[in-house]
């Protein structure tokens, strides 16, 4: 995107709008004159030829101009109070330069950074502590008396990069003189409205006046003024909203220019679009700052919207944006959890992290060129052929990928995975659910089966695993399994027993976590009983109909939010794997039991049949045309449990932007 061109375009558009606005004022005056003439006033007496009385009309026009001018001036002056005054009137709390609150400290730092980037003096900083929507506004008449005000919701939900984008947007409003432009437009609008108000009072006084003849005339003129005033106000509002929208596009473009990245601001917009709190404000005087906000502050008609539609703004910043992403963001951020450490890339300013560990916020899914980490929301297209071809065939790309994945594994975890002392604890920790009530039960179980220091260690690992990228869980498990094989047999058996207990607790166990533990079990068992681990059996696919159905149904159910889609995905999978048999979609009640059974039985299929199962699985997963990272990882884990190792189907993107 060429932001200079965008800026130029937006500026030209808003200049045209201002001209239009002034023309509207002229049109209003002409309209009033015309109405006056239509009702027979403003004409010269027949003695003087009966032409137009320009002097009279000129007086009326001048009177209107003065009326509009004075009303505008009065309104403008009342709005010209400095940014701090506006922020105070919105009920915001000042953030002092020496604040010790970490979130506020970071906010101030960000504002000072962007001030350097944009070359504008550092404005006063405010926080609206009672506003939970994601929003921010700039107020003030000139850069010198500007203030920037941020909602608590922004601090709670936006990462550093995203807030930087939001702040840069507000700085653009300061730098481009939008505040002044907007105050002028509000003033002019009020001037036009004033015509209507004056017209109304003339009409009433005329209607109730004693002299019938003069009263009628006054009433008609009053009505004319009233109509013109309100119609003018209506169109004025439309134009004003349109000016505001074009300034918003300009501000978005400038924000990219200041921060030299579009991921931050796009991420913030995505969060606004995804979350129910949106960007709405509760404060009374929101209309005063509506045009300086980052997102829409008041719900209302699209015609009067002060900001372009969110999706359009995101698309302008990231043409490849897919609205599907929003679902993952909504899921991750509707109930955020406290971040484990404040400077984690995904942690918000106030120290919250997305509920599902490993879910990247929009900011991390940068443009393809800059290559962000793969988020579960990230989508990709994978065909059944593509997946089956990749089973057990690693290309140089994959090795390179493995290297990067390995590098991204935290040191503490990799060393634990290669330490025979630590590895059982690590694997136990991996079996613990990341979220949900199952987790508490599982932690209690661990406390029962281990002594206190070991249990603490496990909990420590659970905490670290929570932050781990989904894609890194399988590689970590693979590393750990290699170490487990070096353990004495008795300890291996004991470990399997314990993992088994933890896996099979009641409650919300994530299917993918379950499968991961299951895979660990399978592989360790293989090591325990090498002869039993004959890689492929001689079972017939026809004999495994129930197992196949269960597996497909579970995967389809897991990958799709609504049952209809799941059913279709299931049907597609069956058609791919077993075209000659029709199976009915049914999600088994005890899915853990069903899955265990299915994986055990299907593992005994010959390779050709396994290939068909994998094809069917990939069909179910990519049914909606896309594969999320969590779906992809589930596929890999299931494949591993079936002894069909599947390399991560991802490609390397270099970090150069």
């Amino acid at each position: 995107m060429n932001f200079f061109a965008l800026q130029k375009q937006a500026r030209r558009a808003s200049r045209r709008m201002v001209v239009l606005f002034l023309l509207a004022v002229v049109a209003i005056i002409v309209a009033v004159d015309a109405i006056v003439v239509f009702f027979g006033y403003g004409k010269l007496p027949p003695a003087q030829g009966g032409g137009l009385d320009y002097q009279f009309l000129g007086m009326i026009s001048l009177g209107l101009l003065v009326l509009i001018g004075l009303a505008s001036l009065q309104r403008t002056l009342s709005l010209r109070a400095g940014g701090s005054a506006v922020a105070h009137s919105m009920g915001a709390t000042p953030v002092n330069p020496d604040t010790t609150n970490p979130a506020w400290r970071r906010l101030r730092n960000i504002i000072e950074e962007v001030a350097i980037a944009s070359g504008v003096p550092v404005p006063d900083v405010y926080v609206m502590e009672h506003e939970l929507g994601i929003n921010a506004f700039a107020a003030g008449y000139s850069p010198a008396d500007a203030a920037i005000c941020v909602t608590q919701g922004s601090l709670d939900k936006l990462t550093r990069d995203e807030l930087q984008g939001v702040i840069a947007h507000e700085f653009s409003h300061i730098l481009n003189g939008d505040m002044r432009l907007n105050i002028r437009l509000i003033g002019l609008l009020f001037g036009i409205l004033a015509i209507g108000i004056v017209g109304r009072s003339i009409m009433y006084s005329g209607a109730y006046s004693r002299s019938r003849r003069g009263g009628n005339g006054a009433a008609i003129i009053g009505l004319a003024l009233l109509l013109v005033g309100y119609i003018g106000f209506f169109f004025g509002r439309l134009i004003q909203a349109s000016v505001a929208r074009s300034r918003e596009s300009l501000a978005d473009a400038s924000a990219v220019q200041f921060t030299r990245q579009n991921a931050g601001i796009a991420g913030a917009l995505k969060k606004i679009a995804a979350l129910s709190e949106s960007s709405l404000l509760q404060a009374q005087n929101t209309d005063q700052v509506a045009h300086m906000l980052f997102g829409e502050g008041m719900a209302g008609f699209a015609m009067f919207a002060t900001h372009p539609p969110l999706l359009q703004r995101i698309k302008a910043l990231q043409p490849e944006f897919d609205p599907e992403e929003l679902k993952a963001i909504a899921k991750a951020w509707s109930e955020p959890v406290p971040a484990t450490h404040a400077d984690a890339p995904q942690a918000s300013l106030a120290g919250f992290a997305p509920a599902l560990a490993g879910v990247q916020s929009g900011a991390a899914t940068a443009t393809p060129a800059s290559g962000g980490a793969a988020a579960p929301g990230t989508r990709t297209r994978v065909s059944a052929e593509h997946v089956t071809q990749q089973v057990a065939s690693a290309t140089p790309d994959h090795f390179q990928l493995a290297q990067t994945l390995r590098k991204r594994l935290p040191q503490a975890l990799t060393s634990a995975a290669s330490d025979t002392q630590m590895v059982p604890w690590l694997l136990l920790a991996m079996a613990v659910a990341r979220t949900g009530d199952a987790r508490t039960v599982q932690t209690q179980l661990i406390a029962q089966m281990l002594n206190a220091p070991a249990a603490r260690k496990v909990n420590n690992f659970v905490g670290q695993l929570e932050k781990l990228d989904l894609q890194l869980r399988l590689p970590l498990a693979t590393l750990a399994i290699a170490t487990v094989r070096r353990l004495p047999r008795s300890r291996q058996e004991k470990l399997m027993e314990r993992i088994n207990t933890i896996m099979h607790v009641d409650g919300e166990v994530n299917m993918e976590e379950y499968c991961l533990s299951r895979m660990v079990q399978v592989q360790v068992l293989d090591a325990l009983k090498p002869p039993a681990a004959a890689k492929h059996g001689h079972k017939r696919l026809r004999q495994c109909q129930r197992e196949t159905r269960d597996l497909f149904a579970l995967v389809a159910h897991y990958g799709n939010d609504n049952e209809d889609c799941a059913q279709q995905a299931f049907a597609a999978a069956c058609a791919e794997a077993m075209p000659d048999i029709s199976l009915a979609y049914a999600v088994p009640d005890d899915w853990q039991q069903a899955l265990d059974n299915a994986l055990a039985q299907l593992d005994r299929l010959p390779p050709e049949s396994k290939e068909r199962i994998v094809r069917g699985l990939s069909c179910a997963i990519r049914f909606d045309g896309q594969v999320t990272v969590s779906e992809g990882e589930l596929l890999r884990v299931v494949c591993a449990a079936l002894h069909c190792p599947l390399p991560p189907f991802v490609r390397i993107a270099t970090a150069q932007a």
Partner: protein
Amino acid sequence: MTLIILLIIIAAIVLYLIVVYNGLVTSRNGYKNAFAQIDVQLNRRHDLIPNLVETAKGYLKHERETLEAVVQARNAAVSGLSNAKGNPGNEDAMKDLAGKENQLTQALGRLFALREAYPDLKANQNMMQLSEELTSTENRVAFARQAFNDAVLTYNNKREVFPNSFVASMFHFQPAHMLEIEDPAKREAPEVSFT
């Protein structure tokens, strides 16, 4: 008559030379001024590091080498900065400073990576604050550097276009060099993304 015309032509040429010369001087001062901004922010960065090391020392008793590397890299960067301050835009000075700052960034990266193994250090309030200040300063350096590089670009463009290039070489306007410090945000291993 010809004399007058000749005089007018000469006057025009001299006037032109003056305009070009002044333009070059203005943009040269422009990038020098832009470097002053970087100087402020880099100083801020260097000033933060002794505090950081002091805080980390208590926790990282067995990681003395890493800490010493940070201190050394910091001292080298301080000398590089004072050297570069004298002649901003000079190729050697800029490369030297960039190299030293990159080394400091790497040393800091190793120090911060250690935090993963020392949860107490990571949870330390002071450390968290310092790391936030350092992040912020690195962003500031990055933004100030953008401004400097833009100014250098403007100057170089002005210096190299025809016919300004004659004036530039006549009065020895040296080409200016951009400051290319690695962005700390990009110091991680190549990221992975789906096809």
